[in-house]
């Protein structure tokens, strides 16, 4: 396979990066990317500076939080659904504790001395 198809959802202020696809507070774009493309490549496609994004999901797995982005080199798969939120998004710890996350995210949290027990990782 030379191309992969990814279902991208941009929320809040990030919707503007989708141009024509922007709806009311979100944009949904069906995107084709070369096989082997990473999250970094997807962000470049839309021109989204990585520091403008907050909570991010790859097919229902938490892959990034504000201030913690271990997913830039994550290789996307055909059929992935990617959801990217702006920095006004939030997901308090107790409401995500035990939720699915990518292997990179799981390692990034486990390596922290506080085991990731925070609501946000910006300046924390």
């Amino acid at each position, binding site marked *: 396979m030379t191309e992969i198809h990814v279902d991208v959802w941009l929320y809040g202020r990030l919707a503007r990066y989708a141009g024509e696809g922007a709806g009311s*507070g979100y944009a949904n774009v069906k995107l084709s990317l070369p096989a082997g493309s990473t999250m970094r490549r997807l962000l470049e496609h839309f021109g989204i500076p990585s520091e403008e994004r907050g909570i991010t999901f790859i097919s229902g797995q938490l892959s990034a939080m*504000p201030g913690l982005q271990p997913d830039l080199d994550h290789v996307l798969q055909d059929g992935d*659904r990617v959801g990217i939120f702006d920095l006004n998004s939030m997901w308090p710890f107790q409401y995500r504790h035990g939720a699915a996350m990518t292997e990179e995210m799981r390692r990034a949290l486990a390596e922290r001395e506080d085991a990731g027990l925070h609501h946000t990782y910006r300046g924390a």
Partner: protein
Amino acid sequence: MWILRINMTDRSYRLEDVPEAYKYLGGRGLTSTIVHDEVPPLCHPLGPNNKLVFAPGIVTGTTAPTSARISAGGKSPLTGGIKESNAGTAWPQDLAAMHIKAIVVEGQPKEKGKWWMAHLTWDGSKPKVEFLPADEYAGKDLYEVYPKLFERFGEKVNIAGCGVAGEFGYGNAGIVYNDMARRPSRYSGRGGLGSVMASKGLKFIVTDRTGAPGVQYADQALFDEGRKKLIDALRTHDITKPKGGLNTYGTAVLINILNEAGGLPTRNFSSGRFEGAPKIAGEAIFEGNKQRLGKELYNHACSPGCIIQCSNTWHKPDGTEHTSCVEYESDWALGANCGIDSLDDIAEMVRLCNAYGLDTIETGTTLAVAMEAGIIPFGDGKKAIELVHEMGKGTPLGRILGAGTATAGRVLGVTRVPVVKGQSMPAYEPRAVKGIGITYATTPMGADHTAGYTIAPEILSVGGKADPLSPEGKAALSRAFQATTAFIDSSGHCLFIAFAILDIPSGMEGFVQECNGVLGTKWTVDDVPKIGAEILRKERAFNEAAGFTKAHDRVPEFMKYEPLPPHNQVFDVPDEALDSVFGEL
């Protein structure tokens, strides 16, 4: 400081000095202690021996930020166990200013069908209560009644009351307080305490603090130092700062987040993802209001002194206000969980819940069970609105639905009934977010998303060395979260300060200093989970005496055998882990 006892058997009242043992209690710590000490655990919740207890938090009525909170407590007609239901409103600030540490409403009038209200004022040196007939306000829409009460008693009063849902004795009737725009929109929603209030013949408690002395501080300098630290933390944290997450999108920002995570309960907990989620989410509310108003609208404070300001309004196509507030739980319960993707329909149901005095969460989860039973189709907003009207009118079907999700499920023959201890689950699917499932299962309140907030990294040590993602680690964290939450609920602060003070240690210090500054205590951050654990022990003891066992600390069976899309997971936390939450308290 006084305990104000209101006896509805003979409509008398008396002021008692605060017993030594209650001196350092406030909010939930005080309501749960009084219920534990005075309410017979086997009493009927709507009978003469139950009591309804109100207590402002420790710092409520001071200049502490985001601290106008009231705890209402009693034996719950929904769960049959102890209940504390917390709301943000100016009403408890009046109580604190009048040096009332708690109101205990007891007894029951012999005569049925008569309604009363208590007018609570400051009489030179002490609080005074006058009992007035309230029959003319019974059976009515609270959007009609509250303006009449403000007209009669003055614009500066505050009101706690119950709607027709309470008059009918529904398990999902809340206690309704006014917000800052005098809407009947702030709720001690959960657990049916509105019916406990109505069972005493009491429709409203109208408070007027004119002339009252205000809160006294044991150490005002310490309080001020703590207050400043907490304000700084709230104003800098991404979630709580002005134009931050909560102020911009409101709590409904979580709709899209949980949807992406596959943990947004949809169509009566049959899926974790709702295709209509982006249309009803916080971002859509923000953009929808912008289109209809022609300008950006940021959220407002639900109560005086809140600097987080997460309460929203939704506007009609012509720009006039439809309702306040479409917060995450209401939006989800009446939206995604019913398969409804119209914000206008959701807003109308929120408005009706406020008008009738219904808990939005329990109402939405009950509608979804009715949809599952085929009473109306999933996704039909107009028919759902009709069912809320049936609850308000007290038709036979409306009364079944008003009894709550568990009862409606039983009457309608539904097996997928998402309740714990008779109270419906809120908007986080335990099969996708397993940590919250442990809290739902074990909290003394019945399934409750506000029972387990975390506020200090130190509490990690409470969990020992267990991996926080193992069942044992999750159980240990749930225990620590529940204890710290019981303390925040006692402090008088909104739980949302937890977001800032977990991440910013000086905010946490300031929070404890504020409490010490009011009470004269010498608590440290380490004392927080210990004090909270003591509250939980009393709540558990009440529930045990009311007949609750380990078997009640479980999620509903269907969650153990029905995999939830899109992750196709079941709730697989072992019973031993659930039992360890309080086994090791």
